[in-house]
């Protein structure tokens, strides 16, 4: 298990509200609690999300406004005080000019000078927006002189990423902030009502189901994306 210590600045680069929390909230909370300032670049407002809450609390047109509020709440829990919305549209990030998306990420990198950049591991994000955003982040980082580049912490969404990347570079034990992690995830009410019912069921069930849920939630894993040039 790797220890999380204060670092100069944490920059998160994701396309959708909830990407910053799901599978990553514990790490972010540990960094910000240690005194690390954090900035989140969120590409879209998840306009085309399929989950509308159950029962539905949103429609296609109110969903982005609701998700923006949810994101702001999650940021508060995560200790992210600087939120940058790019105003791109859900599912279309991969059709934008990657150099132009990279321009906007680069401007933020030059401004906040992150030591760590969290994003999806390029190519292993499953959702095309994840891969488009991480690809743009890598383009932006490549434009910097080597000594100014943040370390890229990538998360993999694919099944069994170890088979492709080997063991993760950082395995973070987030069990000490589990409650806060769940709160950040729950802030995204419209998206996770179904998932939370199942998680809470498992936690309440006790025994092996509870152990398994705690193990999955209590560990977050990252692979460093290395730029060779």
């Amino acid at each position: 298990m790797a220890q999380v210590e204060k670092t100069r600045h944490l920059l998160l680069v994701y396309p959708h509200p909830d990407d910053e929390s799901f599978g990553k909230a514990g790490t972010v909370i540990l960094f910000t609690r240690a005194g690390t300032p954090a900035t989140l670049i969120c590409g879209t407002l998840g306009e085309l999300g399929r989950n509308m809450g159950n029962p539905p609390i949103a429609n296609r047109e109110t969903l982005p406004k609701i998700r923006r509020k949810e994101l702001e709440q999650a940021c508060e829990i995560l200790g992210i005080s600087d939120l940058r919305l790019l105003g791109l549209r859900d599912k279309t990030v991969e059709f934008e000019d990657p150099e132009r998306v990279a321009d906007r990420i680069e401007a933020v990198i030059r401004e906040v000078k992150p030591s760590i950049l969290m994003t999806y591991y390029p190519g292993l994000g499953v959702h095309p927006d994840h891969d488009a955003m991480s690809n743009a982040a890598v383009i932006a980082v490549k434009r910097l002189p080597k000594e100014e580049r943040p370390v890229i912490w990538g998360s993999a969404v694919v099944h069994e990423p170890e088979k492709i990347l080997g063991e993760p570079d950082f395995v973070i034990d987030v069990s000490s902030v589990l409650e806060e992690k769940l709160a950040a995830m729950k802030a995204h009410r419209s998206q996770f009502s179904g998932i939370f019912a199942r998680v809470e069921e498992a936690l309440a069930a006790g025994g092996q189901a509870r152990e398994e849920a705690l193990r999955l939630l209590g560990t977050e894993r990252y692979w460093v994306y290395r730029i060779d040039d």
Partner: protein
Amino acid sequence: MNRFVGDDVYLHLETTNGAYAAHRFGQPMAVCAYIRNGRVRFERAAIAGNRPYRVGLKMEQGWIYAEGLTDYEVDEKGRLLLAGHDDEGRLAVALQLSRTPWPMSALEEEA
């Protein structure tokens, strides 16, 4: 829908089984199609079925069709939103009509 007959209207038409259909839900592939702000004019509008509903909009040269619609609302701007949700509240299909273009981003709408 009949209020929109004969006028130029902006159409949002969408169907999706979710970006993670193949990854998490065991379906063969993720499928989605949408048109946002197609400018259309139709001469006849009809609804059929009994929850879920089907809608057909007949144009001079073509059809607009959607199946699986379960809910509708007219918002404060007079726009008509029809959608089909599955039993977990997930949107599977949407057909929306407006006299003004649908916003491309909520940020744009605010500004």
